[in-house]
């Protein structure tokens, strides 16, 4: 019973850390696709005296990733309905150049403002039209949700880390005498801490497998059975095989650091 309790008191906080990390990874992936949608949906409308290509726009700001000219023909046709062909040609010639520009990433509204300012300072550009209000509202809401989740994950990981350290203190107490005896007889660090590494590594692997199982179940069973459209849409993003390695590496890193803390604190207290 004590054996099981000893393991669970390490496995549970470790799982909490790993769940936090996996939630973070999933959230990052799902928000990335949402960010991509927001980025795709946002553009600036440029009115210019002269014809400009993408390279010229990028000289003005490197965040500009795409410029699409708005064809003037349709515009001229609409304006010149009912007037003569020669007048229509004159209107077409007099019209400025129109462009839709898009950006390489999801930008903060202040960055968009500075891009607008830098574009307006160019003498070839007559007007820059932005769609700030809706974009700003989306950006603020989105940033707040992201911040709240990150803060929660960090807080949960910190609390769990304290629990892991607490368990380390228990191990320290349980293994202190054995490690001190081995040290007196000249055992190298790896030999005297071998049992701790073995136990902690097994617990870390178990924690990783359990966390992975939860997310695999979430992806393949609960997401399908939930009838929630958003979960179904995001199903592919819920867990990826590479996540297992990230979780395993993280748990092993925590084990290595924790065991070394125990070993060195035992060593100091024996001297």
């Amino acid at each position: 019973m004590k054996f099981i309790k000893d393991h669970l008191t390490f496995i549970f906080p470790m799982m909490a850390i790993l769940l936090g990390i996996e939630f973070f990874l999933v959230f990052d992936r799902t928000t990335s696709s949402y960010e991509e949608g927001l980025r795709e949906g946002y553009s600036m409308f440029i009115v210019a005296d002269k014809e400009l290509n993408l390279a010229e726009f990028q000289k003005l700001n490197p965040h500009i990733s795409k410029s699409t000219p708005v064809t003037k023909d349709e515009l001229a046709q609409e304006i010149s309905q009912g007037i003569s062909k020669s007048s229509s040609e004159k209107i077409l010639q007099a019209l400025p150049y129109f462009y839709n520009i898009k950006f390489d990433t999801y930008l903060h509204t202040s960055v968009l403002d500075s891009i607008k300012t830098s574009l307006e300072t160019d003498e070839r550009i007559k007007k820059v039209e932005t769609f700030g209000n809706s974009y700003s509202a989306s950006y603020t809401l989105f940033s707040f949700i992201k911040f709240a989740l990150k803060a929660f994950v960090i807080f949960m990981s910190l609390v769990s880390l304290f629990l892991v350290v607490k368990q380390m203190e228990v191990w320290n107490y349980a293994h202190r005498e054995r490690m001190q005896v081995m040290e007196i007889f000249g055992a190298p660090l790896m030999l005297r801490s071998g049992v701790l590494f073995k136990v902690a590594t097994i617990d870390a692997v178990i924690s990783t497998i359990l966390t992975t199982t939860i997310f695999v179940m979430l992806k393949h069973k609960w997401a399908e059975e939930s009838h929630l459209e958003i979960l179904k849409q995001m199903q592919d993003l819920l867990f990826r095989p590479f996540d297992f390695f990230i979780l395993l590496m993280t748990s092993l890193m925590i084990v290595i650091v924790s065991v070394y803390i125990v070993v060195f604190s035992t060593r100091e207290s024996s001297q």
Partner: protein
Amino acid sequence: MANNIVINASHLTLSYGDTEIIKDAAFSVKQGEFVFITGPSGSGKSTLLKSLYGQIKPTAGKLVVGGLDMRTINSNKLQELRTHLGIVFQDYKLINEWTVAKNVVLPLIIAGYSMDVQETQAKRLLKHVKLSDKYGAYPLELSGGEQQRVGVARAMSKNPFLMLADEPTGNLDEYSSNVIWDLMENACGQLKTTVLVVTHRIPSVFSIPYRHFIIENKGVYEVH
């Protein structure tokens, strides 16, 4: 080891913080000698013993064990030195989760000997200390005297050049104490291991020649 001197101390001072325990001590021990160190409680006997296996570093003077200066020794050299020492403790310091046999061969495990060698040596040593029937038992299943015999067997398992014992019979009855003294006499007399024992009282019957140091007023003096 120059002139077969295993331990050489000169102007040796040992302290805990600002408190000096041993001051300006000088003594030497040759290979194959049996040495008793006695003194009243709190005189610094155990402190002196700890300094011999590097648990405490000298604060002044010189202490050389097995040719190594214990003041300047680095952790790797100290680790290496400890693998050539046999240490016996008053409270046995056996690993309770390990069998008696595994405890006995701890120095061999540390040295990386094969399982076959460990098994053979464990059987031989347990026979020597008359505990053959306790091969697979755990320390807490043994009496105090039996645990100390395991401790002595562990100390002898790698044929150390120096055996250090801190009050080895302090917790034992007379019969068990005599068994331990016999084993230590045997280690020194037959195996030519240098033995240094810290104790309150020298046994009344002791069949091999020995030297006796006493610790008094922070000094170490030989009793002739």
